[in-house]
């Protein structure tokens, strides 16, 4: 691969123009999983386009793109903004989408919140998607994850917690019928 501009490398990593270095790192690891360690899934397909040499070339390009992007971003501004960009307010219509919006406004990826809270990524994403069926049944756990999540994004607010837990309670009640 010839030296190219940043946009080209971002294209290879499949990240947008405003993706942070952290997003790029996450994407890099994901692509490595797809084409490297777990790339065996492509071996079972008898399609010429998935031949090992082509896959090797793709992996090489991913490595180069990530290295070049790292070089370009050594002196980039800090990943986490000093203050939350959006303050959660329980008086607003409050749901999982609002959680996600607040997290994204803080510039934090879900993986980053996982690292902060030690809560499984599928639980955190279930909180954001309000997929209550994918969370533990006991609401004490849900409250615990929610509190950890809000603390990690600097938005801990008891009113917000109780508003969210009300929605969860309604769901449990409906499900019980």
């Amino acid at each position: 691969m010839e030296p190219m501009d940043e946009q080209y490398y971002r294209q290879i990593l499949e990240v947008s123009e405003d993706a942070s270095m952290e997003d790029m790192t996450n994407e890099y690891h994901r692509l490595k999983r797809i084409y490297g360690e777990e790339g065996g899934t492509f071996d079972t397909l008898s399609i010429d386009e998935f031949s090992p040499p082509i896959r090797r070339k793709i992996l090489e390009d991913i490595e180069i793109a990530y290295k070049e992007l790292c070089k370009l971003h050594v002196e980039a501004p800090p990943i986490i903004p000093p203050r939350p960009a959006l303050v959660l307010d329980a008086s607003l219509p409050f749901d999982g989408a609002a959680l996600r919006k607040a997290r994204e406004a803080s510039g934090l990826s879900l993986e980053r919140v996982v690292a902060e809270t030690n809560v499984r990524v599928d639980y955190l994403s279930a909180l954001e998607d309000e997929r209550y069926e994918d969370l533990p049944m006991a609401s004490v756990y849900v409250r615990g994850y929610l509190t950890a999540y809000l603390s990690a994004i600097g938005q801990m607010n008891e009113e917000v917690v109780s508003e969210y837990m009300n929605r969860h309670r309604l769901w449990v009640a409906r499900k019980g019928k």
Partner: protein
Amino acid sequence: MKIWAVGGGKGGTGKSLVANGLGFRLAERGFQVILVDLDFGGANQHTYCGIRKPATSLEQFFENRRALESIALETRIPGLRLIPGNYNSPNTDSLTSTQKLKLFRHLKTLQADHVILDLGAGTQYDTLDTFLLADIKVGVIAPDALSTENFYLFIKNLQYRLLNTVLSKVGMRDQAREIWKGRTLEGIATVFDFIDHLRTLSDEFSELMTQEQARLSLSVILNQVREYRQVEMGLAVKSAVNKFFHMRADFAGYIRYDKELWHQFGQGVPPMQRGASIGLEHDLEVVTDNILKTRKEAGHGTHG
């Protein structure tokens, strides 16, 4: 007006359900929407719309009895109409080229904001051509190896079909056939090596191919998701389409499997109707949003 096509190779991945869901969600946003059931041999979009016996069908259009727009039936959702498929007539699994051209011409003149084409399974030329016609191309996959393999074959066939169309337009089909026969000598392994080689032979071909490839972008929807970890499969397929097939693809999102869905059909309730399935409702909302957002950012061309 925008033409959407919902396809993706394998049968049973939920193409009709997704096409129907996109139709419902767009109509609810105030758009005029027409669903067209082009699943020849397997037409059932009317059932998804909660219509038991449609009074019209595409057959009437193909037999020159009625105009395409006039066979569109109202559904119970304001703004959403349905052009039912050939559900009652034999020998409808392929079109003559005259029928196909007529259909394409008339689809582009429909009075609507969005026309959504529900395509059948497989990689027949009719299906591929209709998919290529659309402004918004939607591929539906299920999280299993069979479905993704068929999807990759669908994409591959799409590339070949596009290449053939371009070759015909520039009068290079015979020349290309000869080159393909001796491809191992030229070091041609994939369709892309082949295209690169052909580009060196004709500027006209190269220019037209670039134009056509620029139009080729796709939104991937992962249907029938039962576990969160399956979602990564949608991202992997999106990436593979980009990297192996040089085709722009985005992941529009996933739709959870609803095990109660079969029940709705027996009662004649459209599964996409509000309140019928909370999960479907939410997931289709997200998917519709994502597709519209991606198209807006890309500033895609439209018909009409």
